[in-house]
């Protein structure tokens, strides 16, 4: 009897943890990741525009944030997340998953290289940052639909 109860309990916990592990809300997750990229672009862009003084720690933070996003965001576009929550993801993502994955792979490669370069001055940051952020519009050109 006790064995039986503990088995049920184990099963119940197993089920709970599985549901908790699979992204409960991929749209919210990918939006949060994209917002973090926007914030990183804001910090980096601010330094390029001269609105924020250059700081290598901030530069590293911006590039590492983008790099982490490049490695993770692609996991949050499952088939059942095409609509809802005012998503701006274009249906083209699922129609042309190969093209979309290619864009993500480029974002990963460019941000890997930029993060590894650890820019120590504004000029080298400008080059590293520039090579990463061209990926933003590179993907938004074909795979995002603006809704407002």
């Amino acid at each position, binding site marked *: 009897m006790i064995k039986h109860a503990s088995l049920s309990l184990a099963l119940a916990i197993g089920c709970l943890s599985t549901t908790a592990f699979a992204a409960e809300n991929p749209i919210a997750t990918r939006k949060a990741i994209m917002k973090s990229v*926007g*914030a990183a*672009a*804001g910090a980096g*862009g601010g330094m390029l*525009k001269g609105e924020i003084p250059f700081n290598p720690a901030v530069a590293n933070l911006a590039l590492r944030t983008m790099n982490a996003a490049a490695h993770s965001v692609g996991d949050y576009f499952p088939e059942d997340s095409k609509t*809802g929550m*005012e998503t*701006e993801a*274009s*249906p083209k993502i699922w129609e042309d998953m190969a093209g979309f994955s290619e864009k993500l792979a480029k974002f990963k490669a460019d941000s890997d290289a930029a993060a590894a370069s650890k820019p120590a001055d504004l000029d080298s940051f400008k080059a590293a940052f520039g090579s990463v*952020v061209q990926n*933003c*519009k590179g993907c*938004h*050109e074909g795979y*995002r*639909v*603006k*809704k*407002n």
Partner: protein
Amino acid sequence: MRRLFAAFLILVICGGAGFWFLTAPQISPNSLPGTQGDPVNGERMFLAGGCSSCHAAPGAKGDDKLKLGGGLELKTPFGIFRVPNISPDPQTGIGGWSTRDFVNAMRDGVSPDNRHYYPAFPYASYARMKSGDLIDMKAYLDTLPAVSNQVAGHDLPFPFSVRRGLGLWKRLYLNNSPAIELATSNAEVLRGQYLVEGAGHCGECHTSRNLIGGPRLDQWLAGAPNPEGKGVIPNVTPGPEGLADWKISDIVYYFESGFRPDFDSVGGSMVSVQENMAKLPPEDRQAIAAYLKAVPALADAHEKPKK
């Protein structure tokens, strides 16, 4: 009965003659200055106009953007338009055109064989361009590579398939007056107006249209449904749903870098527009930004899409 038939026949003939008369392709009579075109200024106009966004092969990047062989299909509510070859190829492009032919096409929407062009080719905007700038643009186009590519015709249902009918549309919407009256003599704002309303043809997408495709000038730049079907083209007036929170320097930076003030990035068809704008001289970006902050502030003209 015979009399009735005669009356009917006369009516048809008069109606037909009237239609024929009203829809005849018209070319502005003014003569062109006989100056040699300046390809440097021509390139500036070419970039402001974003010619390559439609006339280069779809998805072209870098130097391929200068190969204007056409072929892009524009799927619109009026039917499918196929973008023509405007490279200097004499057989399949516009290599055989005179400067006069080019100006007639750009400003009057009339082809060298005296037929109307459909306004998917935004001549209703280009009509506001100066002759000198058009001559320069032709001189620049002549320097680009010839591409041999025969583009098929448009696929349009009746009545849009009747090209002659465009004469009526032109009577309503084709003229060279400014889209909006600005009470200013500020040279920068006026330069911006010239670039935005003319070569830039920004209003073609950012201004909504009525049922027969005429621009709603009282809703100038207040946004529109996306002609490509999904999403919206944003309101770019200084209204609260538009660029109210953007400083002139924010608009300039957007054209330079592709980043909005919130560091979201440019997307969709605007990417190639932004990349062209980034190649313009800085004073032109500044002028466009100054104009966008000077137009009437309006609420969104389009409905928000369903969520």
